[in-house]
């Protein structure tokens, strides 16, 4: 935010560094402006000048001495620039990069624990439910997921280190740990509509996409920043671009649209986050729904329990911890 606001404050400072006496002189000089009071442009400008003056008074900043007509013209031009630029600059106070960084920071909390229920709803209306626990440490650099239900996958666990660059899976039935390459992130989580990369594991939004801020929009009842994240060249992600609506107040991405890897116009999936609660001072979407537009299927992720900033031993995030 500071990056954008600071220049406008500098302009105001340069224009209005004066005391009350000089302000009175300014008002006298303004009466001798080259255009009459009846000039409609003058009326509009005066109106804006008044607004600006009000701003300066609030800021305890006063105009500099004005000696010549040129000075006045310069000031008017400066006013005009400021009057048109300020609102525009205020609207773009954050860049796309800033917003994505904040979303990323929100996802990657220092440490956390969650117990979640994932329900897959198929095209034929069948449901599959999974319950798992997950732990994360070092702002998402280390992650451990362990399935509790159903019995079919009970005990299966996934360990992700180095922001999901290193992945291991543990299969309790064979007591085998298998190292997976990062391409495994493209696989569906237990056949759901989520792939591991959809979960924004690690710094994927930052590393794999270039953000561009679009016009703000209201989405799901929230005032949102709208972003377009375009796949960076030489990255191996399954989507050509993402459109993301980020709640201004909390930086929770309330909706994310995922577009086909080959056809940037073809939307594949939509993710909607809801039931946003503040837990340990961190806004958290307790319910996330991923809708697959191609297959007309849906997967719902419901957080049953969440805790942040907890103490987790490093030994949890090792092969030994994976097998426990």
């Amino acid at each position, binding site marked *: 935010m500071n990056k954008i606001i600071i220049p406008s404050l500098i302009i105001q400072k340069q224009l209005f560094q004066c005391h009350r006496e000089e302000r009175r002189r300014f008002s006298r000089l303004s009466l001798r402006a080259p255009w009459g009071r009846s000039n409609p442009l003058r009326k509009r400008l005066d109106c804006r000048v008044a607004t600006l003056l009000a701003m300066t008074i609030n800021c305890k900043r006063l105009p500099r001495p004005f000696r010549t007509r040129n000075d006045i013209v310069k000031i008017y031009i400066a006013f005009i620039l400021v009057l048109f630029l300020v609102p525009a600059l205020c609207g773009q106070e954050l860049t796309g990069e800033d917003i994505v960084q904040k979303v990323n920071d929100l996802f990657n909390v220092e440490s956390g624990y969650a117990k979640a229920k994932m329900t897959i709803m198929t095209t034929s209306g069948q449901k599959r439910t999974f319950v798992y626990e997950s732990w994360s440490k070092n702002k998402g650099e280390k992650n451990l997921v362990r399935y509790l239900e159903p019995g*079919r996958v009970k005990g299966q666990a996934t360990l992700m280190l180095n922001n999901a660059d290193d992945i291991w899976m543990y299969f309790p039935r064979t007591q085998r740990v298998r190292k997976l390459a990062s391409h495994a992130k493209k696989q569906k989580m237990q056949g759901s509509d989520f792939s591991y990369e959809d979960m924004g594991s690690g710094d994927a939004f930052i590393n794999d996409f270039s953000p561009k801020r679009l016009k703000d929009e209201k989405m799901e009842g929230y005032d949102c920043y709208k972003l377009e994240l375009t796949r960076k060249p030489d990255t191996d992600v399954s989507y050509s671009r993402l459109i993301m609506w980020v709640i201004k107040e909390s930086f929770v991405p309330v909706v994310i649209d995922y577009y086909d890897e080959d056809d940037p116009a073809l939307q594949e999936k939509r993710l909607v986050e809801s039931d946003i609660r503040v837990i340990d001072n961190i806004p958290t979407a307790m319910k996330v729904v991923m809708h697959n537009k191609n297959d007309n299927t849906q997967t719902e992720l419901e957080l049953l329990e969440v805790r942040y900033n907890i103490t987790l031993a490093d030994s949890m995030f090792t092969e*030994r911890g994976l097998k426990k």
Partner: protein
Amino acid sequence: MKKWLSVLVFLSLGLSAHAAQDSIELFGYFESQAMGADIKNEFLLLYSNKLRVDLKSSLSEKVTFAANFDYITFHGKTEWNILDFLPSDLIAEAPAGVESFFVLPFSDRHFLDNAYIKLSFKYFDLTVGKQQISLGTGYVWNPTDVFNIKELFDPAYEQPGHNALRLDVPLGSMYTLTTLFSPEDTWKNSAKLIQIKGRISHFDYSLTGIEKVWRFHDYTQFDFVNMNFLELPGKRKLLGASTAGELLGLGVWAEYAYNWMENSEDFYELVVGTDYTFNFQTYMMVEYYRNTLGKTDYEQYNLNDWMRMIALEQKAISRDQIYVFIQHPVADLLSVGISTIYSISDNSFALVPTLNYSLSDNVEVFAYLNINFGKEGKVFAKNMGNGGVIRARVYF
């Protein structure tokens, strides 16, 4: 059998009641399977039902007890004569009068597959009892695993437990030292293992040393004292290494083991594999396997080679093989795949289409066909029996 069933029911009920009171987890699965094979123009069927009951209890923060009990029944064609599968010219090598010993019986059985206590301390884990031992990074073949041989058509199936005392000592967060002792009748005959496992960059590495008695049989000679084929035990010393990681976006792994044999020729095994998931969700894997114990010409295969492979005493009889597997989720609950195992040495191969369907949360159906394309005498010969397996498994 009734007695065992009663014991099982009693055990299950007793444990269920106990589980409700304490932190005992009781779970497992029931599996019903039909296997068919076309042998000499007749389609033979073998059915099996398997109940596996797992028990796990954390007696304290540091002590875990786990066990499982398997009860399997067989129906249909429960006796298979191995000689029916073998090339006709090799049958003559079988010792006369003991043809009945070439018949593989599938009789009902029940056994304690795993039962162990695990003690977890700050500086080590000690596991004592019957436990699964999984070694190596290969998917189908594991040169460093002298305890198990995987089924070629179903390599992900669980392996049996082995009596062992295992000590795992973490050395920092990146390395683990493992020692394992699997007792036999004498210390000399017991298996010993030492392994150091670690991580460098995005690769896992392990170095393994094993000493174990390998119990081959000579299927051309019969031991009338023990009423079995002549056993030829020989000490096997293995030094192996394995790695797994990522290279140019591909998953890669390799496993190598050199074997010094007491009574036979030394040999080595090598596995190199790679896998990848495409953006359209298709998964592909390729694994190459070399075993210098295998032959380069199929005309060199003898009765012992075949029998040792069928009895899972050795991993392969052809020197070089390649496994290719492709799988795609065609619907949210259904995955189809196809694998092929190609014996480079004798130019024969088998195609194995697979299907995996999630019928409900805890019910899955798995099926595969195996179709061999090779002339008689080769590893994947048509007369080995084209057929398949369908399996339904219910978890509880």
